[in-house]
């Protein structure tokens, strides 16, 4: 087994929600998890972030079982952005810095933070509050936060669910481009096969708590909605 194995799941079972016999998520690639609501996609991401533990089976990251990792150290490398963005009290700046502070990473300069905001089409100032942000703006701010952290693995749970079609297209393209440029492994849950076709190197189809098939997709297939 080598580093290319990335995140490896073997005979994993979590309650009656998810059962994965064998799944490998490659490093430095974009993997999309596609499935209907309630199919177990979110549970899969929570297992990979070690926010919950599997009842049976093993999950490995970089050839080490998750249970052998310090859970906090693991989460600083394998970060999860939930579907409902979590906004911490304070300003845009406070929210951008929250992840860096938790992971004990250095604070970027304001111009770098502004650049990330602009790239996600957010025009707010760093000193603005977060109370008046719309659902879509909060979602994009939460994505800016995790991009600034530059993790090894970015787990994204329906990161564009609150966005309109054109913004969704743009944001997903931005995310995949950022991840590829920085060698970040991106694992994105989506209910849309069209999104997966547009960005994924690997697409995992989940149905009723089981992995139905895994497809390697040529990146850059034209986007269709």
């Amino acid at each position, binding site marked *: 087994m080598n580093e290319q194995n990335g995140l490896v799941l073997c005979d994993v079972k979590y*309650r009656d*929600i998810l059962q994965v016999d064998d799944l490998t998520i490659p490093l430095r690639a974009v993997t999309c998890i596609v499935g209907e*609501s*309630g*199919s*177990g*996609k*979110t*549970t899969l991401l*929570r297992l990979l*972030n*070690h*926010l*919950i*533990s599997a009842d049976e089976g093993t999950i490995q990251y970089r050839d080490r079982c998750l*249970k052998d990792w310090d*859970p*906090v*150290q693991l*989460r*600083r490398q394998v*970060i*999860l*952005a*939930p579907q*409902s963005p*979590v906004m*911490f*009290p304070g300003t845009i700046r406070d929210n951008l810095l*929250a*992840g860096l502070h*938790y*992971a004990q990473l250095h604070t970027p300069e304001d111009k770098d933070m502004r650049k990330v905001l602009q790239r996600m089409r957010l025009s707010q100032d760093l000193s603005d509050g977060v109370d008046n942000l719309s659902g879509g703006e909060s979602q994009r701010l939460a994505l800016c*936060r*995790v991009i600034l*952290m530059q993790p090894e693995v970015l787990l994204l749970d329906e990161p564009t669910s609150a966005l309109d079609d054109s913004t969704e297209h743009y944001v997903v393209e931005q995310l995949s481009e950022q991840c590829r440029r920085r060698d970040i492994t991106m694992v994105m849950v989506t209910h849309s096969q069209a999104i997966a076709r547009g960005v994924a190197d690997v697409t995992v189809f989940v149905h009723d708590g089981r992995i139905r098939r895994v497809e390697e997709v040529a990146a850059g297939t034209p986007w269709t909605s």
Partner: protein
Amino acid sequence: MDLITIGPIRMIAAYVFLLVLLLIVQRLRIGREKDIVISTVRMSLQLVVMGYVLAYVLEINHVLLSIALLLLMQVFAVHNVLQRVKIPVDHVLVRAIAISILSGTTVTLLYFLVIVVGVQPWYETQYFIPIAGMLIGNSMTGVSLGAERLIDGVKTRKSQVEGALMLGATPSMAMRSVVSDAFAAAILPTINSMVGMGIVFLPGMMTGQILSGVSPLTAIEYQIAIMLGIVGSVALTVFILLELGHKAFFNDRAQIRESFTDSNE
């Protein structure tokens, strides 16, 4: 000036106030007559028993007796907190409540007796028991409030706590705002009572001393000192509770424990 003894006959006259309360409650159909009567009987019996116990203890004035009474008060305080706080209490939180009350009030009491008042010997029951009672009583209220707000905070802000964990926060980092809010809520009643003291109301200890013939200036000295002692005791016990107690919500994998986690997709 000699202190007027109330005596049993006039004491009974004081229960007229209870009758007034019962009449009002009945008229307003609040339906709490039974609770009010039970509370009054409990208060009367507990104080009568405590009166006899104190008379005996003050006469004996033995170190072991002082320590035994202190422990008894602390155990009752822990018991009261556990009864009042509706928690899916597990052993970590129970332990945090017990340790905080036992250690926080003991440390403050000894500092107060030895350093502030300069009691000799330190276990002199005339000082030891009433001061211990005031510190423990107030700390008990603080710990109850702190524990309630801690549990409530984890429930209402679970997504925020979990959101911090997802980003690599330690449980302590993730709980920081919940812990801060619980601490503020727990010490607020003590702070508020200091603000109104001397203007809105005269505190019990000072009133008691003045009634027994002590100079108001001496009574004020004691009251200021005990109030600062209470602030210190409440702050210390609540701090210890929150430092130890916030860990109760996480397992050894830094995950929110199952009893606080909703089912996932």
